[in-house]
């Protein structure tokens, strides 16, 4: 597979380490009333779609960027690649 890195262009998937669903960005608030339940869902409940899937890849053999890659799990077609940091900020994560 080739991942079209938003900064570096197409790079072989062999340079990357796969982690899983990009929902891992949305880490719950530890002080929420139902934090334990939220963290349990965050850690263990994952979609397993046949088709489009947003997932996290780490460019370990490159610039050490975490990427959010939108990939079709059936055809492997990749339709979008973004820096995870940009996605995280867009989804409201800060510090």
């Amino acid at each position, binding site marked *: *597979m*080739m991942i079209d890195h938003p900064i570096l262009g*197409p790079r*072989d*998937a062999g340079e990357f*380490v796969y*982690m899983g669903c990009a929902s*891992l*960005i949305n*880490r*719950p608030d*530890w*002080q929420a009333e139902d*934090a*334990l339940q939220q*963290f*349990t869902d*965050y*850690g263990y409940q994952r979609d397993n779609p046949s088709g489009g899937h947003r997932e*996290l890849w*780490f460019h*370990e053999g490159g610039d*050490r*960027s*975490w990427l959010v890659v939108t990939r079709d799990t059936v*055809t*492997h*077609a*990749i339709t979008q690649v973004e*820096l*995870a*940091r940009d*996605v*995280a*900020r867009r989804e409201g*994560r*800060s*510090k």
Partner: protein
Amino acid sequence: MTQTNRLQGGMIDRSRTLSFRFDGKAFQGHPGDTLASALLANDVRLMGRSFKYHRPRGPMTAGSEEPNAIVELRTGARQEPNTRATTAELFDGLVANSQNRWPSLRFDALGVNDWLSPFFAAGFYYKTFMWPAKFWEKLYEPMIRRAAGLGSVSFEPDPDSYDKGFLHCDLLVIGGGPAGLAAALRAGEAGARVILADEDFTLGGRLNAETHEVAGMAGHVWAAQAVARLADMPNVRVMPRTTILGAFDHGTYGALERVSDHLAVPEKDKPRQILWRIYSKHALLAAGATERPIAFENNDRPGIMLAGAVRSYVNRWAVTPARDVAIFTNNDDGHRTATDLRAKGVNVTAVIDTRPDAPDGGDFEVIKGGVITNTSGRLGLTGIEARTADGGQRRISCGALGVSGGWNPNVALTCHQGGRPAWNADIAAFVPGSALPPNMSVAGAANGALTTHGAFHTGAEAASQILDHLGLSAPAPDLPEAEDGPVNLTPFWHVKDAKRAWVDQQNDVTAKDVKLAHQENFVSVEHLKRYTTLGMATDQGKTSNMAGLAIMAEVAGKSIPEVGTTMFRPPYTPTAIGAFAGRSRDKDFRPVRKTPSHVWAEEKGAVFVEVGMWLRAQWFPLPGETHWRESVDREVLQTRKSVGVCDVTTLGKIDVQGADAADFLNRIYCNGFAKLPVGKTRYGLMLREDGIAMDDGTAARLADDHFVVTTTTANAVGVYRHMEFVRQCLFPDMDVQLISTTEAWAQFAVAGPNARKLLRKVVDDDYDFSNEGFPFMACAEITVCGGLRARLFRISFSGELAYEIAVPTRYGDAMIRKLMEAGEEFDVVPYGTEALGVMRIEKGHAAGNELNGTTTALNLGMGRMVSKKKDSIGSTLSEREGLNEDDALKLVGFKPVDSSKPVPAGSHLMTKGSQVDAAHDQGYVTSACYSPNLGCHIGIGFLKSGHARSGEIIRLVSPLTGIDHEVEVVSAHFVDPEGERLRA
């Protein structure tokens, strides 16, 4: 006389003669020959025995689709089984042997299988060797393996090497026939980066095998000129002897270049083969087509081959398989073979054409509407029997028979991404379907354009379209004049009512076997394949699949497209495993990491151990020490008595800087770091988000906004990745910068009561180095040895007064020598990883065995470290009920009741008197060693309720190794439980 079947002309170099041996007999051929063409020139048609019935077989094809003529090539360690004689390039001194025969190819004892064939029909093994099951491994399988099978391996290490490589191009052209050449010329002239790959050693495809003129010259001359033009273009890479093995995701192709297979031995330091990964923007499949046979009674005798292959031998290699040749065809193409044979003066005894309306021949007889009903000749064809349209029988004498059932486009690569081919009734063949791999186009015969004219035009047109996509302008095509005859073909797959009409000659599958499979309700074509083995093995059914499908369709009353094809998968042709290994074998299997003191340790005679990729000194034997324990015990005792030095560079080191560095560490460690003063180091435990311990180490605060974090050796890479995840994905607005500095610093542990005295001699005088000035857990940036920058940490893994000192790695070698010199007066010892392990077990420090992916902070005895006042990775889920039960596993120590007994790691713990089973398991031992300080074996591990059971005598069991004795539950801190030494 040698080479009795050699004709005039051809693309061989008659100025040189090559000697070779086949089954011990000497022969001669010429450069340009394959092993098969050279053997045929010498009137050798019999080249192998079949897989199952040991039937005599000769070459059926002139290419990589060959099912029969497979041999063991070369001898000794280079012996390679299952090599196709039809593609093996002849070289001087080549040695080949036939396979699957004993004692000889002409007389094969297991030929008896052929007489027993009624018992060996499809599914025979499945049905027969079912029972008793225990006989399978010992009796049936070895017996079957001896009787059936292909070549044998050398059982010696491969003396050759294989490279891997990476290529980039705008356009990959797969196949160097007329379509591929036209496309490559077009794209090359337009300036695109082009790779043109062909499995053959001479590009040109069928242009080399046919007599058609191209642009007024012989086809192969035009091809050679085209290749020469391409070779002159700097943007074009022409790769002969290169097979495209597979089409992978996103334009990535696998290719195998046979760099040295045509040489007796590769040149010095040169690889035998290179496995290329080709990154392409576009690919054009121009892989041509493969002729398919017609099945009829005894259609497998040596001398019976595909009609197009006969043309290849006659025209390209100037060889006729026999002096009298007959043709069996369902299309006009077969007539071409007869014409070409006649042109070279070979006698054509008859053309049997299944079509009643077949065209007339020139100077040869055509039996219109005829079929072949049988053949004769035990070790080679001597004649055929034909039934004429009016029902009459004819016996025709011939030494070779060319068979043509039409041509199948080579669609395999179009299906590697899950696509399925589509049926084209005009040529009665499958052509590429609509779902091609992204950015792949197909041209020429591979796309069903079966004429030379069609190949040139579709190839050039496909290239033009690709150039448009690339934004390159192409000059108007200037394509050569070439043959454009119509494809006249009436589908005909097999002669009915044959007893043994071979469909798949490599797997000895007959038309009857296919029918039997249908009778037994194997409906899916994939099941047909597995049940009959049709289409398996080295040729993957390239010549047999179509007939199998057609017969299946016929007996099932379906159309061929309704039956469909089996899935095509990479590799396209068989590939040596060595090519996939590349250079990563033996001692080069993976890179080695050496510590900064490696050279010095080697001088000291250290014994090394692999820790991940690292080579670390395991112990340092002294003269006279004969057992490793002697060395390790000495290193431990001397360190605890005086002082020892150990290279600990392998621990991961990560530089963490930024205004939010302390907050960041608060998130990744379960314990707090915000209040750690500058100049101090703290132990940190890192949890996974699920609350399980991930790694541990220390963080030293060098400045308000600057920490150095250490990780365990094994987890350095994973922890860095995790920290980048936390930084980029979870807290993207933290001001934190990370970089690994593991290799930048050579770090040595100096441990033991005399550690301070030793280091005082090394650390420069202007640093307060007293116990008060530099207490336990202090850290500082200092200078040593008169001004070299260094880092000093007062941390202890051994439990002794200990420091870790780091200097720039280039000075690591000098530093350990300096430490040993300075420590001479204290009888300093270097110690290795074994002594390091013993001392940490004696001290009860957790390591990888305890942080084993199942344990929590609570299990490790650090439950209270998990701060509830802040957010950290894993803190919430570590509060889960199931991880916090009253009798949770806790880290404790164990001593044997009988002090002579060991406490092996991995042993399980059982309450005295209870049953020994999983339900009564009380825990397990994780780390164990012989403690020279306690004079007995000790262990640490996890026990339900932990310290509450201190003093209890408990059973240590290991049913696997027969261990069953008693140990006492004690504190895991065997040495200095109060920690007085390390604060001394």
